[in-house]
């Protein structure tokens, strides 16, 4: 009788674990961090929240040292829709770090954020595909 109870408890525990694993809420609030690069720079883009929120761009040279640029702007576009928004200018926040407090992507769908980096080597551009939940 005792053994049967142990079995039943074990099965229930496994079942509960499976249900919990399936129903565990997926992380949607973590920032999206994307890495890319150009001929001159390594670029990391951090979108804090999907939709409207701050965006941070970290620019380093090919050895990984932070780079100071003249200006960094972000151009949001929905390519499929033929819909472009006004470019967002970032503010330098430290060595190689550029941040815009408010990047609004007002529609769900596939966006492309083109980061334009104006520096001593000319203008480099890196495009980051970002999907905003509908």
């Amino acid at each position, binding site marked *: 009788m005792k053994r049967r109870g142990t079995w039943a408890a074990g099965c229930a525990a496994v079942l509960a674990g499976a249900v919990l694993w399936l129903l565990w809420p997926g992380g949607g609030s973590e920032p*999206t961090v994307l890495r890319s690069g150009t001929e001159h720079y390594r670029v990391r883009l951090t979108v804090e929240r999907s939709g409207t929120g701050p965006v941070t761009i970290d620019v380093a040279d090919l050895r990984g040292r932070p780079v100071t640029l003249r200006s960094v702007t972000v151009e949001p576009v929905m*390519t499929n829709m033929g819909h472009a928004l006004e470019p967002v200018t970032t503010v330098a926040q430290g060595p190689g770090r550029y941040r815009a407090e408010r990047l609004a992507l007002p529609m769900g769908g596939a966006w*492309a954020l083109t980061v334009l980096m104006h520096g001593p080597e000319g203008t480099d551009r890196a495009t980051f595909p970002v999907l905003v*939940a509908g």
Partner: protein
Amino acid sequence: MRTYGPRALLVPVIVAVLMILVVGQRPALADGAPTGQDLHVAQTLGTRELSVVLRRVDEVPGPLRVEVLTHAGAGPGKLVLRLVPTGVSSAEDDLPAAGSVVSEGELVLGPTPASYGATLRVDRPGPWELTVDDGHDSGRIPFVVPAPVRSPPDTVAYAAFSVAGGLLLLALGTAVWSRRWWLPLVPACGMVAALATGVTGAALSPLTPQPPLPGLQVDATVDNVTAPYTAARPVNADYSRPPVNMLVRASEKTSGRRTDLDLLLTDGSTGRPVEDLVVHDDALVHLLVVSPSGRLWHLHPVMTGPGHYRVGLVLAEPGHYALSAEVARRGGGVQLVRSAAGLDVGEGATPVAAAPTPGGPGPREIDGVRIDLAATRPSAGEATTITVKVGERADLQPWLGMVGHLIVVGPLPYATPVGTAAQTAPVWGHAHAMAPVPRGAAGRPDETVATFGPEVRFTHTFPEPGRYRLWAQVERGYALVTVPAVLDVGAP
């Protein structure tokens, strides 16, 4: 101590065979459909017309074989090939950053047409660019290195069948060695459950919706190439993009000199450079140029930057040139972009004789080869078949994947120079004669297979009656043969 006699030998043999069957099946890279295919891209680089072939990549990191086929008239020289990963990734890794050259190779081209190859190395899946540089001009070819991908039901099926195999071994083992009668039943029941899961996964596998194709339907990233089923997908399954505008700039506007034509392709809605052209009919851009007297160029400009394509040619005649480009954007079909302004070229130092007006259907000779052109009674609105017989032997080679190309421009007014008339002609057509591919054959014949023709048949429906200019194009002896003709299309 118990002894088992011959069973002592039998059981380890069974276990070993089952282990080989279950564990020996390497599930990692070997399964699934072929993950890629060869990419053929024509490039008009400097004075050379090159066919660049990127062979399929079977393993990442691994080799990428690049072959470059030259054509008649291309002199000796050197090409430098560079591979640059261009993909955005959410994972942090120790690989060189996107945008940096990770592999380089060199090709020494001989004086005769031949295929030259180099083996480069790719270190990650995702979008890449191959740069082909002849020292003066360079062109970039975007392509995607695929990753071996399995759909979630497939993954479940593989895992479940593996577990079932393991449990089967366990059941056998416990049946042999255990003294308790019920103990083998536990792994046996588990095996049945695992088999049921596996069969369900395998049955669901063909019903799983395919994720959008990175590079062809959606912008490729390292993430959506590596894990297309887990990557977020657009809510809308309409992947098409706005039409393209084309600006044409010429470095020289006097005749007889070598001219660089710069094509700036911009998005019709946002005005931004079009960075998402995909290879269609073996090229990123098919540029057609019609000269004032009716010479035709069919060129393949190379990509030099975002939305920027370049091609060099000698515009020998003064007068008006008409241009059009066929391009395909990611997610959508092919579009024909006609340059609304065309190109006006002033008279240079050495004026060149205008091309004579070609004849209609009938025999002619081009470069010492007899060519017969015939057409069924051409009538507007009805399918007309134009047959071009080049020489007597079946020795044509596929060009851009087709045995023949037929360019059609018209209807053209009689007295106007062809370039000027083509500028406003309502119809610019591009018909194909395809190479027959045997049923079940994997791949397709490439340019080295010279067994097609000598008759090439094109069928095209002319929408309006009038006089049309035709140019049939075939490849023979690694040289492009262009057959100009005039066709009068009658009223229905």
